């Protein structure tokens, strides 16, 4: 089944998000309260809903409680974005809520309201300019890994109880080299979801719930994932 996501606000940012997600094969529902934006979304062939999402009934009718994977709160109104973030979090504890803010104060509020991630377009743009001026070649390589559909990708593997890495030490894992895979590090549940870079001196013991972060070619990633999970068809 396709992952279903809501884009709240078909703004210039919202439309870009919606189109990018559609390209990646997500099922995108566009919600907006602005007629012009809705028309634009319709023209771009999205399923549209004329809602403000300021009452829970609208959210529930869209399946927010169990049928939606993520919501992007990027409407033109900061207040609405904040309100919707809070309502959604209240209805569903696990859903990914991504929002956007141009100031630190606003971003803090959104995080308190329950946003999973708040992006700051100004920060991202500034970083991009800086990296392009100082290290253009490196930037291109990393952008290829992170953003494009190139063969090289970054991926994550969730460690379950049956995983062959369960109870092993991070330092002792060498097998990924046979798969032509780079092991960058691990996200540890016990250490407050902090990312541990692989080479950090501490010899970390892997257990259930940890998440490995790897980089490699798509085929190798898939083979490695199957190997680690001990299943042939296993996915996260």
């Amino acid at each position, binding site marked *: 089944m396709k992952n279903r996501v809501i884009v709240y606000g078909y703004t210039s940012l919202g439309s870009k998000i919606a189109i990018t*997600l559609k390209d990646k094969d997500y099922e995108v529902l566009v919600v907006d309260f602005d007629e012009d934006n809705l028309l634009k979304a319709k023209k771009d062939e999205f399923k549209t809903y004329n809602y403000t999402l300021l009452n829970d009934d609208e959210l529930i009718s869209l399946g927010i409680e169990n049928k939606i994977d993520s919501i992007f709160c990027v409407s033109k109104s900061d207040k609405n974005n904040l309100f919707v973030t809070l309502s959604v979090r209240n209805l569903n504890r696990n859903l990914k809520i991504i929002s956007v803010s141009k100031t630190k104060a606003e971003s803090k509020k959104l995080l308190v309201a329950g946003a999973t991630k708040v992006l700051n377009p100004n920060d991202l*743009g500034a970083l991009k300019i800086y990296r392009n001026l100082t290290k253009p070649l490196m930037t291109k390589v990393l952008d290829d890994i992170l953003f494009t559909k190139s063969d090289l990708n970054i991926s994550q593997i969730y460690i379950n109880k049956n995983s062959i890495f369960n109870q092993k030490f991070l330092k002792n894992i060498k097998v990924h080299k046979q798969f032509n895979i780079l092991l960058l*590090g691990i996200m540890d549940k016990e250490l407050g979801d902090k990312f541990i870079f692989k080479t950090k001196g501490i010899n970390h013991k892997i257990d259930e719930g940890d998440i490995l972060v790897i980089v490699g070619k798509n085929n190798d990633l898939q083979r490695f994932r199957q190997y680690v999970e001990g299943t042939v068809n296993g996915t996260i």
Partner: protein
Amino acid sequence: MDFLEKIGVGKTAVTIICLFENDAINLSAVLGARTLDANIKIVTLVNNIEVESKLKLAGANFLINPNQISAMVASEYIGQPVAFDALYGILLNEDISAEVDEIEIVEGMQIIGFDINQIDFDDYNIVLIGVIDTKQNHKFIFNPTNIKYTIKQNDILIVIGYKSSIKELKTNFFNNKFLKVQDEK
């Protein structure tokens, strides 16, 4: 144009970054700067995607569309939040423990001519992501440890590690200390 000249465009300025939220102002600055200096590096913000081709035509080298970047980040994030946070965190230097950096192979480094696998990156607590081969039109070779790769001048190694480790490795490239211990046995 007068103002651009006054601030050094056409003389001392090597780069100009145009960041107005009004594309017309950016366009005029890009055009002015390119007229005054054929070689200056011009970076500009583009707010409306339709203006992109015009800014390029006017002579901009590099265009930034913040919405486009945010959209890419947002859509990539929901697929693999942990992996993305990890690499992006390293890039943003949020995680002070490690950073992504490049090591350029310059003249005088003793490492030139050696096989890349003779360097023990693990020993430095460094992960080698790959090499940019400058001789082959900046082709990126991912994880060259499983193949034989001879290091040439002007190659760029892309690594993740602590600042101090990367610095140490760079210094050691100038003498012979980079080789794996087994070679000394």
